């Protein structure tokens, strides 16, 4: 499906440019998009190196195991395929905690490690397992206590109360996380029914 969506976006874009006369903008967009992606990855190097370095120490010291034991009841219910005390659990939890505090650049490396561990659990196959989809669903609805970027933009535009949206944001994000988990469950049961039938 990704292949079709990806190709379709570019092909439709080029056809549109032919009709609209926006070919100059499309030319620019190709190289701007590529440049932005590389800049993003270079920016990621620093946080990935730092956090994966720290997490390696935490893992060997046994901190991740301790953390996963602490939150076992919650996580094992959300991720029934992940065995207790498996390193994946520790990474899933650390990712969620980092997201909660709005530490996006710490959350990404932890999330990637969680994915890697879940891939191992899935026998190294190149398809997404049930727990991976659940993990992504929770991540895309990111529960954050303080939306810092939004607050700073509101301050820039001289809001009388830049932080007044913290409460509504939190409630909305919790709703979307619950929604994500329910939708994920629904699709899982639909898949398993199809496999049986």
């Amino acid at each position: 499906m990704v292949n079709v969506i990806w190709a379709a976006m570019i092909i439709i874009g080029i056809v549109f440019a032919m009709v609209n006369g926006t070919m100059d903008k499309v030319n620019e967009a190709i190289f701007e998009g590529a440049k932005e992606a590389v800049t993003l990855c270079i920016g990621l190097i620093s946080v990935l190196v730092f956090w994966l370095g720290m997490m390696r120490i935490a893992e060997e010291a046994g901190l991740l195991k301790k953390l996963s034991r602490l939150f076992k009841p919650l996580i094992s219910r959300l991720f029934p395929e992940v065995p207790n005390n498996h390193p994946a659990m520790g990474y899933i939890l650390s990712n969620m905690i980092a997201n909660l505090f709005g530490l996006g650049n710490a959350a990404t490396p932890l999330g990637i490690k969680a994915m890697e561990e879940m891939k191992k659990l899935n026998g190294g196959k190149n398809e997404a397992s049930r727990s991976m989809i659940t993990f992504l669903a929770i991540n895309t609805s990111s529960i954050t206590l303080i939306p810092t970027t939004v607050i700073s933009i509101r301050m820039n535009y001289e809001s009388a109360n830049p932080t007044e949206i913290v409460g509504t944001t939190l409630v909305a994000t919790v709703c979307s996380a619950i929604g994500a988990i329910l939708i994920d469950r629904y699709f899982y049961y639909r898949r398993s029914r199809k496999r049986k039938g």
Partner: protein
Amino acid sequence: MRAMGIISLISLWFIPVLIGFILLYGTIKKVPSYERFVEGGKEGIRIAVSLIPFLVGMLVAISVFRASGALDFFMNLIRPMLEAIGVPPEIAPLAIIRPISGSAALGIMSDIIATYGPDSFIGRLASTIQGSTDTTFYVLTVYFGAVGIKKMGDALKVGLLADLVGITSAIVIVTLVFGN
């Protein structure tokens, strides 16, 4: 507002205290901390470099789609549908772009706030939507790209539907709290 102060204090202290704690705990457990740090860091470089092609592919496709005017065209198509289910027309572009491109959404959100004012109903709603959902396409590209998942299964569908739930609940909650 005191709770806010406590939360932002925690956010500020969290990382340095966490780093100190990991290093202290590791040293007590006799982990060769510097060597392990370097090992883990090398893995970080490998992951960042292997992500480049995934992100280049995705961002080029999205920016071509946007620059050609195709995105605007589809937004105008979807907008009446969104309005029919109660999405204010001013918010529709943000609701559509939010899962696709984080930087574009940030741009649209700033534009909405500049036009309608941060303390207007529309401004508050835009802030809540921006803060309460994430860029599903980006999260999918980075996480699946980094570990080499080719078959995404239901992940995209689940992510996009969750965004819809998030935007819907943002509209409901902002209407309840701030009125229209």
